């Protein structure tokens, strides 16, 4: 699903954002990527989204060599992954339904597919009853659920979630990660980037720690019952 070999990212400012990264994420895994600010988490995400290409090394996602993708092939690749951001990135003037439908429309789906798929994913994230609400009328937690619904609209094999709980209170944060775990149980690979160690400790699973651009820890740990606010 995600395969990185000898990946280095060197920015023109002189910063080595990633150094010798070897990473393999299998289909169906749930992976937390943790690390302090500046550790290289965002750069790793940008690589997986084909926003940037590595200075050296190779990145394969969903079987595609991302460095070889150009033009509209990048767009086609992005339709095979879902992405959720900390700041939701929803279109505030649109309704919940329209925001999810938007992702399907961008992928050139038919009206029939849109009519079938949008209610399905909204129900999956328990936002079905609020389909007609404008996004700006929703709470942060609800907006993040809509963002997840949008990311799932095109039925991606891989879901990349960047600091999804950054704008949520602890209760909603735990609920949201619980929802992501549920989505993962249904077969979607989830890569969640976070710096909230409490959440990681609570849910457990494969944890990859980045420090100064290098992977310093890559282990699977069990979750705890201790709920830490």
């Amino acid at each position, binding site marked *: 699903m995600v395969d990185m070999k000898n990946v280095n990212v060197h920015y023109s400012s002189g910063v080595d954002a990633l150094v010798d990264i070897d990473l393999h994420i299998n289909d169906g895994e749930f992976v937390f990527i943790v690390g302090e600010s500046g550790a290289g988490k965002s750069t790793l995400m940008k690589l997986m989204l084909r926003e940037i290409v590595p200075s050296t090394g190779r990145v394969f996602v969903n079987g595609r060599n991302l460095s070889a993708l150009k033009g509209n092939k990048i*767009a086609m690749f*992005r*339709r095979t992954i879902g992405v959720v951001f900390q700041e939701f990135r929803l279109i505030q003037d649109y309704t919940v339904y329209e925001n999810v439908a*938007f992702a399907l*429309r*961008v992928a050139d789906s038919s009206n029939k597919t849109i009519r079938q798929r949008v209610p399905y994913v909204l129900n999956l994230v328990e936002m079905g009853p609020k389909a007609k609400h404008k996004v700006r009328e929703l709470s942060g937690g609800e907006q993040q659920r809509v963002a997840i619904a949008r990311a799932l609209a*095109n039925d991606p094999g891989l879901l990349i979630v960047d600091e999804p709980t950054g704008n949520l209170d602890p209760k909603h944060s735990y609920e949201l990660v619980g929802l992501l775990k549920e989505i993962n149980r249904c077969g979607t690979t989830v890569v969640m980037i976070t710096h909230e160690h409490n959440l990681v400790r609570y849910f457990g699973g494969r944890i990859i720690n980045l420090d100064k651009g290098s992977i310093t820890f890559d282990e699977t740990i069990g979750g705890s019952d201790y709920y830490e606010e």
Partner: protein
Amino acid sequence: MRNNNVSYLVKKGISSVWKNIVMSIASFSILLVSLLQVSITVMFILNANIIMGNIEDTNQIAVFVKDDENETDEQHEKKVAHIRDVLMANENLTDVKYISKEEAAEKWNENMDGEASDLLSMVPGGNPMPETFTVRVTDVKNIRFTVSAIQSIEGVEQVNAPYDFANALVNIRNAFSLIIVAMLVVLILVSIIVISNTIRTSVFARRNEITIMKYVGATNGFIKLPFFVEGCFVGILAGTASWGLTCFVYNSVSSLFGDNLAVWQMFGFFNLIPIETIRLPLLLANCVVGALLGAVGTMISTNKYLKV
């Protein structure tokens, strides 16, 4: 791309015109001025060409044969034959006709309803009417040169040609065309820059949406299409308005001619192009040019500010 998504993007582009109303009005106004200028210039040139044609068709040059009392009839006949040959050899002349003194007197008498014969008989020395050739020019632009050539023919007394008006019209048309073309180039550049800035504002207003589009897999065409629709739509609106104004101005000018038709006909204004015959082509041309200008402005802006 599916039809439902194309119509969605077209609606997005059109709605963007209203959301971005201040810049849209600026683009619309500058485009309107440019297109109006193009339309009016085209109408002027088309009609000027027709008027020139009328003048060419009706323009008659009178070539007066020198009356020399000392020459014999044979010499006179040779002179007339020489003038006729030279006139007929001139490629810019057509319809060479000889009018003798008698024919001229007869014609004048006819025009005067038979009252001129008494008058002519009273003139000492006989028939005073001049012996002439009438000719027509094929290309009115060369009339001055042609008249000079006729004047230099041996045995020609005088040449009467109403070339002042024709030349004035040619000069006006040429000068007008040059000025208009120069102004047009400036206006077209300004139009493209203003449209480009309008689209830039629109891109800025929708940057969040564009980022989302990129992350969910929108192609370049999908992202750019609404902006093209916006630019072209403003262009088409301006084109339609320009067409309406041109028709209005043209009708007003035409009615001016209609009120004083007899006077204008003297100057060759016989048949201005009826607006009915060019209304549709004019509308199409305005809209197509407007849309093209809009598209060019959008292309510059999206290529520069929309790195997708």
